[in-house]
């Protein structure tokens, strides 16, 4: 029986492990499917990581390195190249590796940190042929940054997610010509700083409200036809533009990778596509926690680390003190203009001073007030200059306010000035 099994040795798993150790747990095991710790950070060789966390700009591998160094000073055990195949509701972890064979590990607590995967062409149904040369931005990033190979010379980016923007710059620096970035929505899906630093600085045009309506080429991509999207979300005839490209990189969203979570019977939130969690990142199975991109897709790894430390502390407490007293539970609901909220539930007894709530808006909002309502009563207000779907928002709700909530439900909504 292991005190804590952490599934995934990326930023989420690393932060959870370090914090659980710091909180006094001594029997911790990280199961990582890749050959090294760090997860997707290892292929993110650009900088911009760690500004919130460390107050300085780090590359992805450097950011992961900070946590790996911290981990080295602990007794946390790490098993690499190990794939978890199943997590049972009674916390048995089935996994397999070349060296250790097939293992069934019983755990007192589990942290799920499997991250996310990229949406594919199939998910968005882009018409045309199916030649080589259409890659998700992350797959291309791996080829370029980890394997040392270029995936193309003339590139179109579909979707303005952060990885796509980063790859627009990366491909340009490697000598490829990036002709444009095309985004179906009227706003970008990525961080503003990435639009500026990865597109504008390299004179790569961004076409908002546009999409690829046809991919041509038999063996390898030869052409992409792009058209403007009307208010009915359909291409507007006559607006077609032809791009002679050999490569199309997709950055059309990330999906939390929750097959293990679902298989374990953990309650899911269709909005986040991750587990429903309490204020301490605990899922519907007591002692099983979820953090990082597996529970909600983040923009910044700094916030993954913070969220995962919360899970690490909570897992340690669970093992040391047993389950959290249920007490009063507040359901947190996304109101007008919100895509989701996380956590979805707050156990008031579990909140010491305050608890953090993250969410994303569904449209760009100017100067706004974030209203936290319980029933008809507004219990908290937060001012923001601007809100955008591409940038996750965070608010802190003090315990004293939670205690005053008149009904067992909190709704968060936006009031635009």
């Amino acid at each position, binding site marked *: 029986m292991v005190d804590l099994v952490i599934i995934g040795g990326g930023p989420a798993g690393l932060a959870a492990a370090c914090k659980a150790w710091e909180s006094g747990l001594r029997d911790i095991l990280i199961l990582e*499917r890749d050959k090294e710790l760090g997860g997707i950070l290892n292929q993110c060789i650009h900088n911009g990581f760690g500004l919130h966390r460390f107050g300085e700009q780090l590359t992805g591998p450097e950011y992961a390195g900070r946590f790996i160094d911290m981990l080295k000073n602990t007794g946390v055990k790490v098993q690499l*190249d190990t*794939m978890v*195949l199943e997590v049972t509701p009674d916390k048995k972890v*089935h996994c*397999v*590796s*070349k*060296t*250790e*064979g*097939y293992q*069934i590990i019983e755990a007192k607590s589990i942290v799920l940190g499997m991250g996310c*995967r*990229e949406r*594919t*062409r*199939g*998910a968005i*149904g882009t*018409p*045309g*042929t*199916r*030649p*080589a040369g259409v*890659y*998700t931005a*992350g*797959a291309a990033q*791996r*080829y*370029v940054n*980890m*394997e*040392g*190979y*270029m*995936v*193309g*010379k003339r590139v179109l980016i579909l979707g303005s997610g952060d990885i796509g923007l980063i790859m627009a710059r990366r491909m340009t620096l*490697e*000598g490829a010509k990036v002709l444009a970035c095309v985004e179906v929505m009227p706003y970008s899906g990525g961080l503003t700083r990435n639009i500026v630093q990865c597109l504008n600085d390299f004179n790569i045009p961004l076409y908002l409200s546009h999409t690829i*309506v*046809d*991919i*041509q080429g*038999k*063996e*390898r991509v030869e052409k992409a036809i792009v058209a403007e999207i009307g208010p009915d979300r359909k*291409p507007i005839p006559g607006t077609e533009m032809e791009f002679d490209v*050999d490569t199309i990189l997709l950055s059309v969203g990330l999906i939390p990778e929750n*097959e293990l979570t679902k298989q374990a019977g953990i309650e899911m939130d269709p909005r986040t596509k991750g587990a429903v969690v309490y204020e301490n990142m605990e899922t519907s199975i007591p002692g099983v926690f979820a953090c990082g991109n597996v529970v909600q897709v983040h923009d910044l790894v700094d916030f993954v680390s913070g969220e995962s430390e919360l899970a690490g502390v909570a897992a340690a407490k669970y093992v040391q003190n047993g389950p959290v007293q249920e007490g009063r539970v507040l359901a947190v609901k996304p109101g007008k203009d919100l895509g989701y909220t996380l956590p979805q539930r707050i156990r008031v007894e579990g909140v010491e001073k305050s608890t953090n709530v993250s969410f994303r808006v569904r449209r760009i909002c100017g100067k706004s007030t974030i209203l936290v309502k319980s029933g008809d009563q507004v219990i908290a207000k937060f001012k923001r200059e601007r809100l955008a779907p591409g940038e996750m928002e965070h608010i802190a709700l003090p315990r004293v306010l939670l205690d005053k909530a008149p009904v067992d439900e909190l709704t968060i909504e936006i009031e635009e000035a």
Partner: protein
Amino acid sequence: MYDVAIIGCGVIGAAAAYALSRYENKVVILEAENDVADCTTKANSAILHAGYDPAPGTKMARLNVRGVELAKEICAKLDVPYKQCGSLVLALSESELPHLQHLYENGTANGVPDMKILTKEETLAMEPNLSENVCGALWAPSAAIVSPWEYALAMTEVAVRNGVELRRSCRVEDAEAMADGGYRLTTTQGTVEARYVINAAGIWTEKVHCMVEPASFHITPTRGEYYLLDKSEGTRVNHVIFQCPNELGKGVLVSPTVHGNLIVGPDAVPVHGDDTSCTSKGLEFVKATAQRSVPSINFGESIRNFAGVRANLDVDDFIIGEEPEAPGWIDLAGMKSPGLSAAPAVAEEAVGILKGHGALGAEKADYKDGRRHIRFKELSAEEKAKLVKEQPAYGRVICRCETITEGEILAALHSEVPATTIDGVKRRAGAGMGRCQGGFCGPRVLELISKELGMDPLDILQDKNGSNVLVSETKVGGKSNG
């Protein structure tokens, strides 16, 4: 000089090769693409039809019913994913009920076993996610689903094991009758001479036929577009769900696949050659039409769209037989639906023709039939543990969506018909078939191909010749350079 040259290694060519491999004959398969099952066979509905559709008395009717019988045995023997889940043809209005009766009578005449016409209640009890508009259905329990490319691959593997020669990337460009019988085929890999030719070139059968004689048949390649949905939608229905043809067309099907996904399609649009592009119009039609049968399909779970071309013919039957003006030239043409279903029975016909000529050798005494394929994810925990202990490569999962291990990929790269491309590995081992569509495992599979086959990563193909994945090294250079 070969006894028989088979042109094309789709499911028809593969079935013919498998059937002929039993006999003491020198057989060669000439496949134009760089892998087998790389055209119509890899992109279709993956259904073995019960056989109530074809008109009684046609070859199609007879070979369909016989073919599905044989397929069941072959799939069991060769470890091909197969499931006899049965099919339902829905009547979605009262006016469609007579059509069910018509199909039932057709099926009875064709020898389709155990059919039944179900009431609305019986139908909904079997498939609760069907439209409330359903008025009844024809139930045919002998219909099945199969993995078409694994089916063709498995038959080819056994054929190759038993001495049939397979040449890939070997396109037949011309054919001429030789003075003292037999044919000389000019291919992209030189000349091949054979006493008999089996023309199983799929959508190109007419073109190939015309190399020796004008064809009496005309093929119109007809494209069908599909959605393939994630396993989360894989149990939306549990049987093959067809519609009655109506003023909108033949209707589209909704079916589970043997791999646990949901397949939805196809439409039918005549195209030139092997134009397998998808169109927004086609996909919208497929989606809207499918929702008439199963309104709750969550198309947000789509993981891939694809299209296949089928060899539609100007007559409503298969063309199977010897060209009267070209003795020894056997056409297996017009293998549109139910071509996949009929394949092994079509092969029997070809063998019968050769036998009629006295061209068949004796049965091989040392014939090695059968095939076993390790699928790690289908094993029990105990079996997995044992396997990994014996062969540690099965302990490293390469494709996480489908749980495909390094051991399975190595097996694909060293099989009797080895994979040489990323999609070749996908068709044999299943890596890259899942929800991330190879985003994670693609680079790892590429690395394994490079290592195992000693290939430069820059030469590795996604699928067909020319579909290189990588174009150059980066400024720092590839891994191979350290």
